[in-house]
């Protein structure tokens, strides 16, 4: 198994080196945004992949993070915070907000809860779109300063790429760590049978709230980066349709597959750009692709990416001499 990790690291290194050589300007913008979206998708992975809770709320927390930066770093209310502390403050603030909201929303179960997150998105969107003093109304807020890291200003998309990749890697490592520790296991037990989880000592309610807070913090963090990257925030981004898109992004790569999430996010953002010629049909293809994807997910595992990886993996395994897959065996000390 170890060689897979090394291949992964090498591939990552190639990716980090090659992309800025190949892309710039608009296309780099797209890649950066795709990577930022993957951070949001990671939050969804925790909630849905691990915990089995379908939540649309991430998009509103993303907006929260973005508007937070937009208000706190631009002297709108007399506060002019430098971007780095504001950025680091964002996930903390929104973890708390998400926690409080989660305490209320998780009094509901299953689909009730999902509907309540949709309600949340609608409420948030309406405020984002209408309340000028904080959110700038339909025009949004522009002129947001770019990230300033101890004096180094990220003024080009290519420069942004590195910091965004670093953030994605950190988030990925965190999420994977969660998966392998008690929180991840407890969420999995909730996903598979809530009542049984209770009998195993899992505080189902609080665990869900915690997962929701982490997802909210991640989304807010991504939103903060996003608005500094694009130097603009507007309500359009944070609507129900995009909420659905984030969920699909997470499912695409394999909602429980840490690498697949990034792949899914990149596919969703980049593919439409590559298929420019099919612009008119893009949405239709997208819709059909979603349905097809859900149909062909093999039982128990999610994501096109995982299927492909399985096929590639088994191909490699079959063709390596001496490492045929071991069969599970049992030994009884007595017959």
């Amino acid at each position: 198994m170890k060689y897979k990790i090394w291949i992964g690291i090498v591939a990552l290194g190639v990716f980090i080196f090659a992309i800025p050589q190949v892309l710039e300007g608009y296309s780099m913008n797209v890649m950066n945004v795709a990577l930022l979206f993957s951070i949001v998708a990671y939050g969804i992975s925790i909630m849905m992949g691990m915990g089995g809770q379908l939540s649309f709320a991430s998009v509103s927390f993303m907006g929260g993070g973005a508007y937070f930066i937009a208000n706190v770093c631009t002297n709108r209310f007399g506060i002019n915070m430098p971007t780095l502390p504001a950025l680091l403050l964002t996930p903390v603030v929104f973890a708390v907000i998400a926690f409080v909201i989660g305490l209320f929303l998780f009094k509901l179960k299953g689909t009730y809860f999902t509907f309540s997150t949709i309600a949340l998105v609608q409420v948030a969107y309406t405020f984002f779109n209408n309340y000028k003093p904080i959110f700038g109304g339909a025009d949004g807020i522009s002129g947001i300063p770019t990230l300033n890291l101890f004096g180094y200003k990220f003024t080009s998309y290519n420069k942004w790429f590195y910091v965004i990749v670093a953030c994605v890697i950190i988030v990925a490592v965190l999420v994977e760590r969660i998966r392998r520790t008690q929180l991840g296991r407890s969420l999995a037990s909730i996903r598979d049978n809530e009542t049984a989880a209770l009998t195993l000592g899992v505080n189902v309610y609080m665990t869900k709230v915690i997962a929701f807070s982490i997802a909210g913090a991640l989304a807010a963090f991504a939103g903060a980066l996003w608005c500094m990257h694009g130097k603009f925030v507007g309500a359009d981004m944070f609507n129900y349709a995009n909420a659905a898109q984030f969920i699909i992004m997470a499912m695409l790569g394999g909602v429980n597959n840490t690498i697949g999430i990034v792949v899914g996010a990149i596919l969703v953002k980049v593919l439409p750009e590559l298929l420019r010629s099919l612009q008119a049909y893009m949405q239709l293809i997208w819709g059909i692709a979603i349905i097809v994807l859900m149909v062909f997910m093999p039982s128990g595992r999610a994501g096109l990416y995982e299927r492909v990886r399985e096929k590639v993996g088994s191909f490699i395994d079959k063709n390596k001499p001496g490492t045929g897959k071991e069969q599970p065996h049992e030994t009884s000390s007595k017959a």
Partner: protein
Amino acid sequence: MDFTLFSTLVINGLAMGVIYAMLAMGLILLIRAVGILNFAQGDLLMFGAFISSSLILDFELPLFIMIPLALLSFCIVGLIFMFAIYWPLRKASYPAATIIATMGASIVLKEVATFIWGALPRSLSPILTDEAGKAAILYIGSVPLQWQYVLIIVVGSILIFLIFMLFEKLYVGKMMQAACQDAYAANLLGVPTIVTIAATYMIVSVLASVGGYLVAPIFMVRNTLGTLQLRAFAGVVIGGFGNIKGAIVGSILVGLIEVFSTVSFSGYKDVTVFLLLIVFLVIRPQGLFGEKIADKA
């Protein structure tokens, strides 16, 4: 506020409430009889609106021909929807998969509608118009009410009532629910599961599409009509999940609240409805009529 304004708002609210109730009823039917949460419900309404308006505007069919044709088309759409979404996914191990697939279907329905009928909204005149071609008004005392709203309330209520009787009281409906809950037993009892499921999808499609036809003159026929489903979601939850009666009452409530809040906070009417939903959920999670949520090991 004067009485005229009040009555107008009430009628408008009830009418929208009935539309939401039709959507909500379809949602619950699909959940209880088929076990799927349909995020394309509003788009079925939208598609129904397009079909109806096309039959009237493009084919210039008189009402008595248009209605049976439209109903037939709605059933066909329902069947196609079932074969595309439900059938391949009926054994999916990830319940979220079906939900996401309906999200995909929502997009597909929008795009197909745009391809067939174009991206521009179309206007459809109300069912009853006066000599000048404008919306006919019904006068109750001195209060003017738009006939279209009244028709929505009447037609919608009748349809809801009929289907409610089918599902809550009559054997057929209970059989369909049983078929969902235990396909094996239902098969043993001679209820062909696929038939009951197909019937459910057709009924749901008709409910939503008729709603689309009724509401088209008010909102114009456009591919964004699907967002009406969000109000239906709110109605379903407020009413108490899984409960048809609750969903209907909840949806009508939502319609009324929405309309009345446009008086004071026009831009924020969504906030009123959905904030109320959240507050409601927190205070009374089981909704108005739901049972207390009981867990079993």
